């Protein structure tokens, strides 16, 4: 690429990074003043060369020739096919009497009565969750007629947290990390939290894979703070995140107005809607990070002070949080690995999770550990065990003096609530298995014997394993 400024100091134009080769336009010499209106030079008659008897040095057999009558796949097309999220199976039976999660049944009492039942997501919820990339291709949504999830005990607890935050009129924040065995429903619980918060009119932000932020697959750029350490902004990731946020919170952003004085890039009027502000960041990756900062400043204005309408509480979630609790794969100018907490976007989440930065309008910061693609972070493991013990009023395990812990992670996890997800109860297992049967995916009668068997074989009701053992079984 021609627009590289300096390959050493990492200060380079962000314009052409992470764009496909097809997007690069052919460049013309800058010093020419004459318009290029001349006709194309006449074509010379091509000299037809005799086909030589030897073509290349490789041995050519008839077997080697490939018939390429089809178009080769475009860049990223095959991966897109693999990562496609399908939310419907037209073969599955429509479950009669499947109710949706809605504003009416979003109270602790109402939801408590619906425990161990499966609830669908309404069309608006599905669109918002899809925009946030909260559905994952591995989660088996493609087996059922429409997206639905089991209301479990933990779901009701989360709704209780949301209600507790709302009751505090903006002074309360819940900071939590979900962990538990693989397939125990951490990501889906996060999805339920996002759906419920969105229905309650909260501003929802979701980072579906923290791994994408730290494996050095997206651009980064140093940002020097006066007198402080160097931090790194990830402009292209921020741009994508802003797009997801805009699509999921369109109804809120269009109603909120900019109230403070900002050095707004572009031609935004002072009283413009926040949607216009986000659009600036979505269009230009170079401006995505400043736009993110301004957006955050606007959203966290105390509602009493803001001129642009009352600010909603914020639900900020991140999946695979273990990936940002260690060194990242990025290198600094000295070719030393950069700690994930020095990357500005993960840092922002960590500041909120640890409570160093507050949410003046209230909200919830919810992280989830990934077990299927686990990053090694022994400090996080120990911190989770400690916090769990403290929460249950047990003696917390001491920090081992002979082990080198990550100070950043230790500080970040201080006082953070943890919730361990375990297997379903038998009633919940019955609820989900009856839903499978009514969708036509279990062909046997759902009896207590079958439920006990599936529950036991699934390691005590690990929901992912129940699904694997019943719906996806090779019977």
């Amino acid at each position, binding site marked *: 690429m021609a627009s590289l400024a300096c390959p050493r100091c990492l200060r380079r134009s962000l314009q052409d990074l992470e764009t496909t080769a097809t997007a690069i336009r052919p460049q013309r010499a800058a010093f020419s003043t004459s318009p290029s209106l001349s006709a194309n030079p006449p074509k010379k008659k091509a000299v037809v060369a005799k086909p030589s008897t030897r073509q290349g040095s490789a041995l050519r057999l008839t077997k080697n020739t490939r018939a390429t009558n089809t178009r080769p796949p475009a860049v990223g097309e095959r991966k897109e096919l693999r990562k496609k999220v399908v939310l419907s*199976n037209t073969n599955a039976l429509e479950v009669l009497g499947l109710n949706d999660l809605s504003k009416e049944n979003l109270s602790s009492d109402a939801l408590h009565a619906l425990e161990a039942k499966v609830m669908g997501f309404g069309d608006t919820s599905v669109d918002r969750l899809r925009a946030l990339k909260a559905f994952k291709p591995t989660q088996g949504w493609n087996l059922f007629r429409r997206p639905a999830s089991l209301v479990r005990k933990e779901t009701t607890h989360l709704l209780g947290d949301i209600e507790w935050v709302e009751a505090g009129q903006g002074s309360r924040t819940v900071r939590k990390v979900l962990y538990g065995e693989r397939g125990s429903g951490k990501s889906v619980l996060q999805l339920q939290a996002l759906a419920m918060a969105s229905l309650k009119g909260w501003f929802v932000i979701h980072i579906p894979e923290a791994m994408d932020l730290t494996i050095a697959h997206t651009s980064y750029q140093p940002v020097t703070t006066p007198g402080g350490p160097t931090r790194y902004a990830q402009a292209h990731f921020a741009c994508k995140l802003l797009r997801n946020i805009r699509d999921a919170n369109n109804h809120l952003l269009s109603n909120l107005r900019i109230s403070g004085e900002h050095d707004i890039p572009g031609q935004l009027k002072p009283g413009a809607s926040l949607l216009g502000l986000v659009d600036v960041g979505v269009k230009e990756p170079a401006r995505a990070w400043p736009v993110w900062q301004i957006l955050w400043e606007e959203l966290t204005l105390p509602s009493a002070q803001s001129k642009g309408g009352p600010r909603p509480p914020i639900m900020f979630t991140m999946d695979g949080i273990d990936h940002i609790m260690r060194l990242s794969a990025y290198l600094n100018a000295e070719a030393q690995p950069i700690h994930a907490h020095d990357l500005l976007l993960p840092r922002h989440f960590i500041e909120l999770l640890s409570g160093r930065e507050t949410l003046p309008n209230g909200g919830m910061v919810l992280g989830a550990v990934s077990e299927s693609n686990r990053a090694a972070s022994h400090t996080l493991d120990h911190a989770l065990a400690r916090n769990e013990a403290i929460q249950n009023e047990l003696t917390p395990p001491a920090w081992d003096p002979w082990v080198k812990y990550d100070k950043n992670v230790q500080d970040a996890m201080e006082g953070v609530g943890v919730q361990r997800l375990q297997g379903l109860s038998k009633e919940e297992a019955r609820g989900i298995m009856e839903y499978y049967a009514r969708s036509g995916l279990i*062909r046997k*009668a759902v009896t207590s014997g079958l439920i006990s068997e599936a529950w036991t074989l699934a390691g005590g009701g690990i929901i992912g394993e129940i699904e694997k053992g019943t719906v996806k079984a090779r019977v």
Partner: protein
Amino acid sequence: MPPTITPLPVLRQCTLRPRATILRPSNAVIGVKRPACRSFADDKSKDLPKAESGESGPNMQQQEHVSEEAAKMAKIQGGQGPDIEGQGTPVQEILKNEKDTRQTAPKVMKEQAKQEGNATKPGTRPFSTLARRRAEVTPTTSSPGDAALDSSMLPTAEQQARHDAAVDASSNLQPAPEESKGHKFPLPTMPLPSNLRKDYRYDPVVNQVTNLLMQDGKKSVAQRNMATILTILRTAPAPTYSEARPLLPGAPPASHLPLNPTLYLTLAVDSVAPLLRIRSQRGAAGGGVALQIPVPLGLRQRRRQAFEWILDAAVKRKSRGSGNDMFAQKVAEELIAVIEGRSSVWEKRQGVHRLGTAARANLNHRAVTGRR
């Protein structure tokens, strides 16, 4: 709480029991009469033991015939037992055995015997299957987006009642019967169904196909591929049957297949399974030409051949995506193509059958029959 194990029944059920005393000359007791029989340890003398007059000797106390015993029991209980005296030999049997009687038998019986003698000609059937075949091929007219099910998928009232009864029976598990103390849960009914045994827990077709999918002995990879294939069959749109390629008779409507992927797989494999293979016997035809002999295949052999053809066709497909599941994707697409009659496997099957028809004349060849 009563004790779980009572000592008495245990003693009674004990397998170690004292052996019955054998009375020998060595341990003879005065006053106890020896029975007139030889035990296994007695001397093997020529003279057999004889019973005293009035006593019963060996082989004299034979068990009665079942019907005789039943008749006696019925007499004791004042009922009517089986008729012992009246039971005679059936006429047909007599006719079969005695030549003279056969000649003098009534005309009706002669004709009946003649009809039983010659069975129907092999290879012909007295009824036509054309109408049934047509009914199978006719596509169902339900649209895929229709929320309501087509009526054939809904159970009848009788089926529903039977199903409900079965559910009720199995969900309210009976408490353990009194005599089987010590079992927390009721014992299963014996013999166990085949899918409860670990070696036969999967459907036989799924089992065989999984093994055929396996490469380099990696069974777990093959199992994952199998699971992916079944999931794709579940989620792909219902196939449309083709009239040109009739599937096995008795195939369900196409809309039923996605919800029963095992049946889908079985139907695809069994429908293209060849009935025979061609064995080439070298030099049998003379002049160095191999003699082609059709050989019938067994069920597993037929399935194996069919799935190998499907695999060959699937490997040649072009994968559109990337990742681990592409192989499974291609196999699943080929299976759907088989059901829809688009697959090239059908031609292979047809080719083998045509060859077999042509080569059936060779079955009379002396190299095959062994006759000169």
